């Protein structure tokens, strides 16, 4: 069942121009300190993750000593590595996130987690050799009324039972 899906770009790293994405993100939000996180979120969403090159490019556009804005690559990397929704490593074409918080856990999450790992053949944090799926765990998404919950890219699935997994994953190339 589809939520507010924003279609992920079909082909990510390699086919997209990283420099263009970074420039457009900075231009859209503005080169100010309080926009660093939105800028990184945008790069992450458009490119799939934030590689070192993106940090270098962003820093060049944001560092403006004459305006008293001092930005180091370390500062930007510090942000990218702190926030869970910013990824510094390449993921598979689709990211499967499983809510591992307590309410989902007690509503069948425990069993679902076992099935998830079995169905995908992955442990938390791993990407399949075919580059199709990455499995991650995530903290409470705030939809505990329909636990257990999984997120595949931007699509939210609630009341998920192990039997439904094959069907759900079949929708994602």
């Amino acid at each position, binding site marked *: 069942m*589809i939520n507010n899906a924003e279609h992920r770009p079909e082909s990510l790293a390699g086919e997209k121009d990283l420099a263009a994405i970074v420039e457009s993100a900075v231009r859209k939000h503005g080169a100010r300190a309080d926009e660093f996180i939105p800028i990184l979120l945008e790069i992450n969403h458009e490119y799939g993750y934030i590689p070192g090159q993106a940090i270098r490019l962003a820093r060049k556009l944001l560092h403006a000593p004459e305006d008293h804005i001092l930005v180091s690559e370390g500062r930007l990397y510090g942000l990218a590595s*702190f926030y869970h*929704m910013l990824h510094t490593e390449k993921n598979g074409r689709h990211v499967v996130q499983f809510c591992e918080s307590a309410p989902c856990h007690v*509503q069948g999450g425990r069993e679902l987690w076992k099935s998830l790992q079995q169905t995908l053949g992955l442990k938390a944090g791993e990407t399949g050799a075919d580059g199709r799926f990455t499995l991650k765990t995530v*903290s*409470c998404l705030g939809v505990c*009324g329909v636990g257990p919950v999984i997120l595949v890219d931007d699509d939210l*699935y609630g009341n998920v039972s192990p039997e439904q997994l094959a069907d759900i994953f079949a929708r994602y190339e």
Partner: protein
Amino acid sequence: MAFYRSHVLVSVDPECLSRGAHDVIDALNDELIAQGLLDEVQVLETSRIGDPYRLGPDMLVYPENIHYANLSADDIPFLVEEHFLKGRVVEKFRAQEKAVSDEELGAPKPKEVRIVLRNCGKIDPHNIEDYIAEDGYQALASVITGMTPEQVIDEVMKSGLRGRGGAGFPAARKWQLCRQVADNPKYLTCNADEGDPGAFMNRRVLESDPHSVVEGMIIAAYAIGASMGYIYCRAEYPIAVQNLKIAIAQAHEFGFLGGNIFGTDFSFDLEVRMGAGAFVCGEETALIASIEGKRGEPRPRPPFPAVKGVWGKPTNNNNVETYAVVPQIILRGAEWYSSMGTEKSKGTKTFAIAGDVINTGLIEVPFGITLRDVIFEVGGGIKDGKHFKAIQTGGPMGGCLTSEHLDLPLDYEALTAAGSMMGSGGLIIMDDETCMVDMARFFMEFTQDESCGKCTPCRVGTRRILEVLEKICAGHGEAGDIETLEFLCNEVAKNSLCGLGQGAPNPVISMLKHFRSEYEAHIYEKKCPAKVCKALIRYEIQPATCTGCTVCARNCPVEAIEGERRLAHKIDVDKCIRCGICLQVCNFNAINVL
């Protein structure tokens, strides 16, 4: 002007969307077109309609006020033909009314009083006029044109409103402290980073009734003298972010935000700032750091944000619910608000019930309701015929309460005295198949993961506590472990910089206090009484019941079961990974978990 004879509201909150609400709407529109009814029946999207959550997608048909639930796209052609063409209510699709019935039905509910949730599901969050029709922005008008900032603070003070984020500090006193600081400009922040597992009240309000928060913030800004406000909303709530932005834009159009509001010299603007996935940013100083584009690391207080907050300027931070209630307090009066609740905890509070109960979802009740009423009357009791074991209040920084606390009134003081806390209002209910050591480990895993890493007691201490808990759950617990846990918990709680570290040991401490025997069983007897911890349980086939059908052996992923056809099978305990598949596939109930 189009005259519709019927209005249909379909809920499109995340839960319903995940169950196909958009497919239902598409089917509805298609069918209405096919039947030539599109000019007579208006289809509107709204947020969640009443309780319980499990029965979405649902719809409300006016003017008859019929509530249909658990719909799928396939149900729609029949529904349209029966209800809209033939005028017959389709009973089989009707929502089953439970103990907590919907406010829209008019009947006074047993325990609920909906103030913060009053508009949820009734109005279109994308339409400011709907909000205005429910007395929206009236409070703002009377404040700006008829009250001084001091009078506003006074009224909120008299109402007894305490911050709903968790600490319960009197809201008006916080506003006063900020107002008194001689510095400019002043900022307002709204903590919409609801990260507590099991808490989703704020999410509902932000999605379904964003204007109540906007209006509350403008009133607070007027009282404090702030000129700019930020709503810090977690990125995991995309619909809330979207609805907030729409609401803010509309409020601008109507002149409720921006320069010279209502023609006075009071100006205020609001912006939404998104989080990026960090639970610790729900802590107010970490939140401020995040707004400033930094890592969400808390700062020591004093100085408090009221004195030095965003960009070093005076800042007032409050929770979504605190702001959302303010317009009602202004409109209906402090006396009305303080007539509800207990002596020190006035008014109502939203709670999110999650876990092993029949009715999970949101409620709003006056303080003072007992835990027993919440779990059994409102929650409908434990599902699947199991028994109540414990309830976690206050999220991962709270404590658990057991059946000896069932008659405790829900208010700030009572919960703290019992060793837990109110927190943001998430209630996680656990049945007797829950292992309390496993749950403590679970909560600690969460807080450890979310620790920002800045201060050593939290960064290292929570990791050490987690290691001990994992060791115990894996069957390697040893004498002295409980004492180690108690020592570590004490140190981490006393020496951490912020509420995350200070509260992280709470679940462990309270579960040790109420369920010490379970810990001892894990350590000394290497047994898990609730049969959860994989390392401490054994799957065994009962020879007397086993028919030798071989189904379990064929399904075992590690080939740990041996046996000949028609003869009792046996599980090799060393190979068994306790996945539970054999238990599921056995048709004769021949497998026991010991």
